[in-house]
């Protein structure tokens, strides 16, 4: 089934609130080789003016992944997960994520293009905090490879 171009403009339901734990930030930090004390040590983070430790810049992928899973599960989208390759990724911040944040993601499909037999799907996931304020937007382009 080819990608359904009608999914452009579609906004999915907001994800359930995700509570960012201190140990999750530490685990993610270790996995991306982050050694900055502000990522790991609450005292260092507080000395720099943060409420708690700060997540590395690519941490919102954890929230975005939840929204991309929703997109892949849309029955009429026609996106074959086994053929998906990550094309581009961007994170645009209003403020850093810190431990204790409760984050919600909402994905909107912004573009579907076909190039050769491949399709490119771009989606924005807007991440907001418990008070509804913008934290970061994660923008992803997925390349869906042509069938053999």
């Amino acid at each position, binding site marked *: 089934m080819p990608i359904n171009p009608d999914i452009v403009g579609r906004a999915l339901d907001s994800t359930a609130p995700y509570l960012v734990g201190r140990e999750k930030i530490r685990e993610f930090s270790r996995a991306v080789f982050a050694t900055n004390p502000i990522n790991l040590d609450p005292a260092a983070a507080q000395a720099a003016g943060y409420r708690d430790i700060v997540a590395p810049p690519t941490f919102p992928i954890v929230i975005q992944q939840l929204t991309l899973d929703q997109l892949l599960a849309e029955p009429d989208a026609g996106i074959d997960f086994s053929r998906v390759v990550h094309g*581009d*990724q961007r994170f645009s*911040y209003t403020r850093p994520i810190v431990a204790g944040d409760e984050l919600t993601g909402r994905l909107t499909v912004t573009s579907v293009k076909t190039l050769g037999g491949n399709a490119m799907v771009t989606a924005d996931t807007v991440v907001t905090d418990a008070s509804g304020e913008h934290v970061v937007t994660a923008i992803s382009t997925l390349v869906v490879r042509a069938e053999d």
Partner: protein
Amino acid sequence: MPDTLTVGDVVAQAAFPLTRDSLVRYAGASGDFNPIHYRDDVAASVGLPGVLAHGMLTMGLAVQPVSDWLGDPGRILDYQVRFTRPVVVDPDSGAEVLVVAKIGKLDEEAGQARVDLTVSVGEQTVLGKAQVVVRL
């Protein structure tokens, strides 16, 4: 951080040795359990040259030298990359990712800079248009 910055200055560089263990660790931390990142048989069955590092792992580590140079990861305002070439991680020898961070643009008035990353394995770059906007 030095007081005077000039476009073209190399502000940070680092080498990151990746092993299969790194990929399993990242899978667990990120929740991306696509088996092409830890199973040779699955990677081969979809025509890949070997088990690949998660693109998001490469993106995630490539910004760390910038974070350390700034001294504060919270000063990273925007970060984008294009995934141009897969990073094959050999079961024995792994792969080494080299990152060089250079000032691409300065906006003194806004107190911001764009840092351009060159991210390579061996002789080949693996990320394109890897740009970090930072608050100085």
